[in-house]
């Protein structure tokens, strides 16, 4: 077998694939955070909890209503989007005139409530979610053409590839909607100067509400994708969201495409770290964050305020 870093090429390829798949989650979640931050000036700490709720909702739909994965991919984001709208109207709305930090604190409080309730209801241990048969299993990819060795065969888990592909599609769709459509141009304008856009007769408060709902729906969508990969637990969101915060700091929240690219790139970097120096793989993103802050405090794609 051909090896790089004492590791067979096929395993290496798998690590890279897993890295891209992690990057897909970073991308979707940081995209949601960036969209919400742009409109509301709130860092949505609840994002991780909403992602977790998405996974649980997919589980509950399958377990108790027999509604499968494909429907969950559509229904869960809608439900969570509505949930987000309720949160925005009931809580976040009251804080817009205050320091932005209160939004962070409020959403942090909501995380504790939601996670606590989920532990109380489902327990802290993981629940299994059966992914659809179509996405189960693996594909064999011979690498002989690349390395000249017949024994180099890469095993590709179909579900992981599906996550990467659908995430890219969703991210690009969001990018297109915000950067290239009329609605998106309203959104960008309202981010820049809400009172002026309001003067043009556009209902900005409604847009804010819908934006938050949309950001939460993205988190829910990511949650459904995650349900097929790992055990569904109440704490699956909180550890992930802190890494996503670091991703957001690295990328800067100024650009949609920036968030997407940073997300995928950092997933890859993490994979490379896992191959070259496994002990450091858990902190590599934080280290990169420190380096970026030292060299370019505004983030790779950010604008200095």
């Amino acid at each position, binding site marked *: 077998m051909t090896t790089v870093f004492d590791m067979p090429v096929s395993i290496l390829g798998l690590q890279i694939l897993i890295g891209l798949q992690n990057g897909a989650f970073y991308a979707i979640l940081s995209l949601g955070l960036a969209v919400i931050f742009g409109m509301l000036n709130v860092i949505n700490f609840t994002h991780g909890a909403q992602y977790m709720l998405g996974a649980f909702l997919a589980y509950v739909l399958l377990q108790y209503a027999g509604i499968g994965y494909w429907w969950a991919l559509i229904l869960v984001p809608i439900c969570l989007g509505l949930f987000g709208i309720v949160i925005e109207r009931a809580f976040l709305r*009251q*804080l817009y005139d205050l320091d932005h930090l209160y939004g962070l*604190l409020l959403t942090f409080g909501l995380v504790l409530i939601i996670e606590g309730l989920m532990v109380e209801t489902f327990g802290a241990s993981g629940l299994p979610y059966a992914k659809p048969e179509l996405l189960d299993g693996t594909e064999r990819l011979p690498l002989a053409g690349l390395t000249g060795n017949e024994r180099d065969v890469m095993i590709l888990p179909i579900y992981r590839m599906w996550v990467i592909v659908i995430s890219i599609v969703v991210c690009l769709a969001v990018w297109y909607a915000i950067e290239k459509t009329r609605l998106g141009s309203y959104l960008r304008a309202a981010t820049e100067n809400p009172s002026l856009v309001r003067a043009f007769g556009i209902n900005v408060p409604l847009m804010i509400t819908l934006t938050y709902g949309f950001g939460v729906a993205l988190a829910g969508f990511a949650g459904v994708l995650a349900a097929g990969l790992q055990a569904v637990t109440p704490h699956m969101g909180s550890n992930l969201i802190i890494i996503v915060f670091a991703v957001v700091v690295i990328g800067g929240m100024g650009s949609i495409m920036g968030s997407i690219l940073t997300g995928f790139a950092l997933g890859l970097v993490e994979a490379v770290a896992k191959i070259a120096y496994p002990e450091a793989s858990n902190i590599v993103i934080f280290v990169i964050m*420190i380096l970026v802050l*030292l060299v370019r405090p505004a983030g790779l794609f950010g604008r200095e305020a």
Partner: protein
Amino acid sequence: MVDSPMHVAAHVRQRVSGKQVAIGLLVLAVFAVLPFVVYPVFLMKAMCFAIFACAFNLLLGFTGLLSFGHAAFFGAASYVSAHALRVWGVSAELAILSGMIVACLLGLAFGAIAIRRQGIYFAMITLALAQMIFVLALQMPFTGGEDGIQGVPRNPLFGVIDISDNLTLYYVVLVIFFLGLFAVHRTVHSPFGQVLRAIRESEPRAKSLGYETDRYKLVAFVISATLAGLAGGTKALVMQVASLTDVQWQMSGEVVLMTLLGGMGTVFGPAVGAALIVTLQNFLSGFGSLVTIITGAIFVVCVLMFRRGIVGEIQARLKTK
């Protein structure tokens, strides 16, 4: 006017009225008697968190910086002090001191990185940096991974005073508690503290007045981290354990809540908040995740309706009368 010692003395005498002395003595008396009424370990735990919250408030309340990573300093000091007591076998005060030194250095490093961004980013950066410490605490050999460092001995204070008895230790922690609070009080009511408040009100204005705000913010961050280290080290001595709970993000959130509940921007409010939260946790400890839910609910209520906090609210009421 020349500030002769006599002038200063007269000045001080003027400031401390008889009423204040009486209140001070009363507070001392209450704290002296308290361990005979309430379980001393519980009181000591509350005092440790009170130091932690007051140190944190130096940043949030008086400088306007929301650090979401103070668990890193508290936890790192807790681990280092526990290690010093158990493995190095040093005396209690040296163990706490080594915890403080580590927290101070960590604060210097984190502060230097985090103050490069403001507001919401500052919070996210401190959170991410603290998470890095959490991951390290999970992986490094000396921290004991999931188990933490357990069975930490209470080595004699200064090598001679036996503090294995809870009641004796209580009075030691009481002294540490007053020292910690005094340090915060002195910092806040110093010219340095005035500059911090100016930064909180408007950083550009403080800058235009010629203050190098970044330097002031960094020093405030380091003082806050060091005092958080004092709290963490003392906690390891009292509870005889250092664990992942001390460095986890929930701990960073808890100290925010204590400060918010007690009243940010008041010197002693966070201590009140800390006492309340520790009491709450004590009462609800048997009910699983109920304590998390209620903590979260208090958080939401505080943010939405009770932003001045308990002591802040009392002060505001007294002023309007």
